[in-house]
């Protein structure tokens, strides 16, 4: 057996092993942009490897309700994705949906134990409240949620249409909270916080949301047939079918207005005009939602300001004047109009969705700030009253679900600190974030790969019902999409500058031309440019370069040792060891089944790209008693990185040269393409194992004869 490196003595590299256990990865932009700081790069990579259950585990570590985010997250991560500089960002949200659906999220049953006696009350059951409840339970507090309506979920239930978030998903998450022991008080409107403290609650988290629609302040706004978007959506979402006319005008350009328009469409409105102040580019709604609305037949009318709602008893139409600009020179909301340009729409129903504000009962005695929101300390979430914390839309004004979830989690930790009389430890674990864009020369070298979008229902199918519009990826597309990730911030670094001989190998062989010589003659590998392909790590003659993620450094050695252990137990001859790209293992029936079921005598060492296999690894496999070794990579066409196949073959050839000198036949070391069709691969593999069998037999007989 191969002794673990340096078990006989301590080599120079081994003195540094302690250092290498540190994680030197930088927080990628996606994670930094996520309000929950989810480990996106890690779970996307796990999906790319086909390890979906582990991906879900990573997701669940930092997201209380992944299934909800999987449907409706506004994905700020995708906005900053470095891949966006090359072609299009990774479809992170859709990948999360895939992990949730295929990773067995439904089976997960969280448990929580009560370890503290201080009771916490949560007022409002929107995403912030649910998230706080979840984390407070995990921290061991008895939690009660007070909800004014009959069902939990806040905006998730009454604001977001079912075609975006199926109710079963929300119900499942709520059920889990109940399982975790959260006490639920629905149909209970909290009127006084004092009362809550009298009931024995030691801390209160106010998360009542922003439910009050803003008013236009124009003539005719109170006529029958005019409805505010929030009320309209709430009625539809609670199962009522409010009667609307055939022609509907929706005022507003935000997400709520879009949701209202698309909901009206599903209530059989024939002609829906969405009219907003902003120009098409300025519309605050998410671009994908606007596009979906247009696809479904909603007519956009941009740059119009409402002037008057007309009609005698009921609404018959609405008039607009041209809006020439929405913001003034200082960027403040200050629209200006051209009265001479007018347009009017005939409509039996007018829906107004121009924003919401919170409505905080005066009896709460909370200090109210700008936009009727509760004033809090942004770090501790404390209000002017002791033991009262606040968060969510009630504090920020209308925001996203993921922001609310993050606030809820933050509130849980701050409440814990408050109840345990600890000083708030904020940002203690913050890691360095990757900054800086890709250089044009790096972008040029990165392979452009199409973004795989998940399938969607056709607009015709959508208009008829409230079924979810977006469907889930299949395995192949999910994995291909995940493989586009550039793995920002986890690339190579020269960990041992003292060992670096400045041989310039890395600089010469990097497919992306990332390493450079600085003015003092030192080689630098800028982390924001490195694509983490691992080629320089395997080639560095001084072993001075490592991958920033400790797992990446140890991976092959650990897998190899693991295989050795299992193989020794089975004692089946001849032993064949195959290094297979884990990213390519999916879709290759032959190897994937070998890996899972282990054909007698063939052992698979999964590697994260064959470019990371070193000559030494191959030799070690032989040293461990392998009679044959093969390398199965994805082939250059399928690999998302450059030059990987070339370097894998270089190292294989080098190993062959050494093996020949020892007297091993060259056929004992072969390379296969994982993306050859299954039959070819199966045949090649059969031939290979047959060949090895013969060689083994011949050498065994030869030895017998000699002795």
């Amino acid at each position, binding site marked *: 057996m191969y002794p673990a490196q340096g078990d006989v003595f301590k080599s120079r590299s081994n003195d540094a092993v302690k250092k290498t256990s540190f994680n030197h990865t930088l927080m990628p932009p996606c994670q930094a942009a996520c309000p929950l700081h989810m480990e996106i790069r890690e779970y996307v990579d796990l999906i790319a490897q086909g390890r979906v259950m582990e991906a879900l585990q990573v997701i669940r570590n930092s997201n209380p309700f992944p299934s909800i985010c999987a449907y409706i997250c506004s994905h700020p991560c995708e906005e900053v994705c470095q891949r966006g500089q090359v072609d299009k960002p990774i479809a992170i949200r859709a990948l999360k949906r895939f992990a949730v659906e295929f990773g067995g999220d439904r089976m997960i049953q969280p448990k929580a134990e009560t370890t503290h006696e201080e009771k916490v009350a949560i007022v409002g059951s929107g995403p912030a409240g649910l998230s706080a409840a979840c984390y407070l339970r995990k921290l061991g507090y008895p939690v009660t949620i007070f909800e004014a309506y009959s069902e939990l979920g806040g905006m998730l239930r009454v604001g977001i249409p079912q075609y975006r978030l199926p109710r079963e998903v929300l119900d499942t998450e709520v059920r889990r909270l109940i399982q975790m022991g959260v006490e639920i008080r629905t149909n209970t409107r909290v009127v006084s916080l004092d009362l809550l403290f009298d009931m024995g609650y030691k801390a209160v988290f106010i998360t009542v949301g922003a439910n009050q629609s803003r008013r236009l302040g124009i003539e005719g706004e109170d006529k029958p047939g005019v409805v505010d978007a929030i009320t309209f959506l709430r009625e539809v979402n609670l199962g009522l079918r409010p009667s609307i006319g055939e022609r509907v005008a929706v005022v507003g350009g935000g997400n709520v207005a879009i949701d209202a328009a698309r909901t009206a469409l599903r209530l059989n409105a024939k002609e829906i005009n969405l009219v907003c102040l902003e120009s098409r580019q300025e519309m605050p709604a998410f671009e994908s939602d606007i596009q979906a609305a247009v696809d479904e037949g909603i007519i956009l009318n941009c740059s119009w300001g409402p002037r008057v709602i007309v009609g005698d008893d009921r609404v018959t139409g609405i008039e607009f004047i041209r809006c020439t600009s929405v913001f003034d020179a200082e960027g403040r909301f200050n629209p200006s109009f051209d009265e001479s340009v007018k347009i009017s729409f005939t409509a039996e129903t007018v829906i107004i969705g121009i924003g919401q504000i919170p409505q905080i009962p005066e009896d709460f005695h909370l200090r109210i700030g700008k936009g009727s929101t509760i004033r809090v300390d942004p770090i501790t979430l404390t209000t002017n009253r002791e033991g009262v914390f606040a968060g969510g839309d009630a504090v920020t004004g209308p925001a996203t679900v993921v922001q609310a979830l993050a606030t809820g989690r933050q509130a849980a930790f701050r409440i814990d600190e408050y109840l345990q009389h600890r000083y708030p430890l904020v940002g203690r674990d913050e890691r360095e974030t990757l900054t800086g864009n890709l250089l044009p020369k790096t972008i040029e070298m990165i392979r452009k790969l199409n973004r795989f979008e998940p399938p969607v229902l056709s607009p015709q199918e959508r208009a008829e019902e409230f079924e979810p519009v977006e469907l889930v990826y299949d395995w192949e597309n999910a994995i291909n999409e995940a493989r586009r990730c550039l793995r920002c911030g986890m690339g190579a670094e020269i960990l041992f500058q003292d060992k670096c*001989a400045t041989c310039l190998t890395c600089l010469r062989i990097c497919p992306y031309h990332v390493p450079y010589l600085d003015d003092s003659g030192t080689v630098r590998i800028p982390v924001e440019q490195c694509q983490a392909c691992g080629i320089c790590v395997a080639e560095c003659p001084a072993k001075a370069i490592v991958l920033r993620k400790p797992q990446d450094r140890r991976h092959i050695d650990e897998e190899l040792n693991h295989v050795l252990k299992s193989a020794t137990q089975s004692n089946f001859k001849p032993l064949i060891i195959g290094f297979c790209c884990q990213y390519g293992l999916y879709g290759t029936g032959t190897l994937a089944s070998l890996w899972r079921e282990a054909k007698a005598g063939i052992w698979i060492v999964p590697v994260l790209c064959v470019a990371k296999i070193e000559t030494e690894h191959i030799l070690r496999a032989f040293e461990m008693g392998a009679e044959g070794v093969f390398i199965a990579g994805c082939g250059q066409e399928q690999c998302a990185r450059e030059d990987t196949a070339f370097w894998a073959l270089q190292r294989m050839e080098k190993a062959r040269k050494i093996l020949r000198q020892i007297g091993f036949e060259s056929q004992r070391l072969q390379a296969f393409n994982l993306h050859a069709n299954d039959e070819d691969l199966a045949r090649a593999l059969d031939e290979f194992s047959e060949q090895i069998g013969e060689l083994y037999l011949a050498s065994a007989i030869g030895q017998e004869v000699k002795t």
Partner: protein
Amino acid sequence: MIVAEQKPLDEIRRTIAPYEKILILGCGTCMTVCNAGGEKEVSVLHSALKVAQTRGRNEAHSFLEYTVKRQCEFEFLDMLVDKVKEVDAILSLGCGVGVQVLAERFSDTPTLPGVNTSFMGASKEWGVWDERCAACGECRLAETAGICPITRCAKGILNGPCAGSKNGKCEVNKDTDCAWILIYERLERLGQLEKMRRYYPPRNFCPIPRPRRLVSKVDINLGGNDG
């Protein structure tokens, strides 16, 4: 930089055969750069020797591996004292200088060369090295436009090109540039073609008294009296 090539595995195995415990010692400077004996090559050789052992019989070596910054300095070798005590022989992947300094420093331990020291050269591209200097001790590069005819001309002639130059290539190897054509072209570029017209007397071919020694420190002369 000094360029070397690892010896064939067979030869290495033969030289280490008499010894049981062996220290494979890499060198962190030139031998690392030319891929002959850096820390990585030490590990690869270590693995290769162990694979060979699984095949052969009657071989029961045990190996230690280590890489020092430069084998040609005594100070770097001092840190090896404890390791050398444990072994029967040192297999050095340093250049010929390194092997000898090792042998001098550890006079009781056999020191075996693992590489063939080849020449002084430069890297053409990744993995390719070309000889550039023969260390003749009489540099003529000022007259030959920075291109050394002694190293780069197959004959080492000082008044070239010879009749074996064809289309800028050497008759000895048609992939090799004729050094004298290169010199001509570069002199032309520099506007110094008149240097081609001069006759260069033969080099001093007397055997160089070896070993050579170079002293860069000076003798202190307090009075400053010449002679």
